[in-house]
């Protein structure tokens, strides 16, 4: 029921103390505003980190050779470890390895040439499983396959940004030859990647071909993917890989420097824990500031009741029921908190949303801030909290008002 008189009462009551009303409302406004901004920033940070993870298969382990730090079986510390195809075979035979790839890099910088045009791109020489591990999506043609490896084929798969750079006016890159380090490679596929632009500027070659041409049986890095298994299993396999390689390269299994591993699943787990904490902290701070605002409202309503003691006494003498007194106070409190809170919510959303759209339309990428969305369910939840807290803030003063004895109130 819309009761004009009640609203008039509220407006006139609030209007009689404009500064006080404004300051009280501001506290609530600020509380909600800060909560929204914090949540937006938190989500932005989380999304940006999540994006980095979604770039690769989450349950993978990266293994890089390092330098021994301990003496082992008469061998001095400080030896450089190097991986070769034997290591690849050893690790791929281990139980639980779903996918495995090596990575081999050409040393030094060089140009990639097509029909006289030379551009600089990064080249990775890999096994076919690299596709799964890097989450590469083929948009045209095919990825590298086992036959390419076995037969040392001179083929390549290029990122869509590479294709755009060389092939204009709708020219089909498939079947064309790129010249890399004086060798021609036939393009068999084009891919894209959900990660950063950098990922889409790669050129992939079969690792066997590259090793043969450079005359070295080297592997710079091994990456394995373990499929959907719990973290403990993943850590166990990581340990087994270390042990196998320790035996092969004669270093102590306790040597943490000889090879370096990076377990993405472990990192992801840590990441989720950290963000769980951050989210909890944001809510803690946000709810805290809202509570501060609500307590402010409650305090002011107590003062309002004190000021209006005589008026409430008169109203009671004229036939105001306790209920009408309570609703008068509570409604004013709910109105104040909801309006202030709603404005805070709107300003917060506008700021976060505006920032997002400015970033999108101007193609600005901030590494630690991506897609700072705030979901609708949370907004509704916040509004519900606001109305509820308004009612709670008004209830104590209202019950105080009901207790007012009209005789005493009017004598004062």
């Amino acid at each position, binding site marked *: 029921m819309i009761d004009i008189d009640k609203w008039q009462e509220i407006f006139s009551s609030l209007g009689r103390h404009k500064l006080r009303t404004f300051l009280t409302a501001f506290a609530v406004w600020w509380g909600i505003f800060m909560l929204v901004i914090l949540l937006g920033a938190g989500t932005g940070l989380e999304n940006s980190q999540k994006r980095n993870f979604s770039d690769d298969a989450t349950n993978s382990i990266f293994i890089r050779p390092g330098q021994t730090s301990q003496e082992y079986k008469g061998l001095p510390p400080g030896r450089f470890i190097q991986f070769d195809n034997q290591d690849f075979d050893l690790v791929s035979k281990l139980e639980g390895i779903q996918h495995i790839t090596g990575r081999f890099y050409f040393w030094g910088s060089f140009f990639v040439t097509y029909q006289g045009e030379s551009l600089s791109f990064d080249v990775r020489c890999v096994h076919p499983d690299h596709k799964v591990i890097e989450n590469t999506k083929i948009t045209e043609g095919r990825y590298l396959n086992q036959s390419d490896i076995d037969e040392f084929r001179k083929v390549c798969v290029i990122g869509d940004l590479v294709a755009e750079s060389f092939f204009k006016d709708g020219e089909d890159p498939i079947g064309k030859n790129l010249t890399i380090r004086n060798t021609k490679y036939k393009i068999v596929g084009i891919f894209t990647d959900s990660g950063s632009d950098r990922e889409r500027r790669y050129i992939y070659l079969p690792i066997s071909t590259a090793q043969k041409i450079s005359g070295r049986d080297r592997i710079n890095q091994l990456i394995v993917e373990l499929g959907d298994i719990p973290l403990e299993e993943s850590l166990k396999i990581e340990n087994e890989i270390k042990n196998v390689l320790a035996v092969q390269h004669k270093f102590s299994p306790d040597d943490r420097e000889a090879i370096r591993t990076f377990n993405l699943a472990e990192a992801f787990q840590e990441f989720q824990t950290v963000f769980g904490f951050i989210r909890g902290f944001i809510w803690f701070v946000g709810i805290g500031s809202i509570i501060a605002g609500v307590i402010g409202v409650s305090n002011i309503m107590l003062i309002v009741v004190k000021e209006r003691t005589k*008026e409430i006494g008169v109203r009671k*003498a*004229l*036939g*105001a029921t*306790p209920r009408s007194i309570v609703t008068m106070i509570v409604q004013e409190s709910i109105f104040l908190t909801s309006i202030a809170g709603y404005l805070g919510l709107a300003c917060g959303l506008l700021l976060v949303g505006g920032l997002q759209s400015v970033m999108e339309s101007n193609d600005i990428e901030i590494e630690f801030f991506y897609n700072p969305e705030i979901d609708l369910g949370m907004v509704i939840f916040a509004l519900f909290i606001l109305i509820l807290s308004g009612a709670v803030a008004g209830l104590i003063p209202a019950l105080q008002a009901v207790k007012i004895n009209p005789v005493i109130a009017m004598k004062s």
Partner: protein
Amino acid sequence: MIKLQNITKSYTTGQNTLQVLKGIDLNIEAGEFVSIMGSSGSGKSTLLNILGILDEYDDGSYTLDGTLMKDLSQKQAAQYRNQFLGFVFQSFNLLNFKTAAENVALPLYYQKVPRKERHARAVEYLDRVGLKDWSDHLPTQMSGGQQQRVAIARALIGQPKVILADEPTGALDTATSHEVMNFFKEVNDQGITVIIVTHEHDIAEMTSRIIHMKDGLIEE
């Protein structure tokens, strides 16, 4: 209209119990014009509060227009006040941020009378007390006598059966006091029971029945 039987009331402050009313028996018929007199501490204000259902009594019985007023909830008390009684106070007790008409209309608000009708009736009652042109003025812009007339209009608008006035002339000069008393007389002539608490003899003389109170008892 009003029937009090052996009403007692005591206040407890700390360990002291003060017996304010020691057994009041009183009958007031419909249409009577009554004044209650007594020195301060005689219990006359307490009696008026009980009559106005603003305070509860300890023992005895109070019947108002045939209805027993005992063990009422706050809501019931509010409704009976609104339905049967009109109050006029010594300090007027108008709401300063509301216009004369809004003040007069307030009891009707609690009777859930629609807005427009409320205003029309408020202006009508202000007209009766000769303040029609002051409808849109705030109480602070009016003299004491005018404010009390607004308060009388407010007491009358709910068409009560009984008007209770607590020292209604206490804050007014003699001429204005007589003017206000004449209003009460007119109200009484319309058949409404009027009960005035006062300590001024000349005011009490203007009523048709004087009830003297002393030490919590009536000595008529």
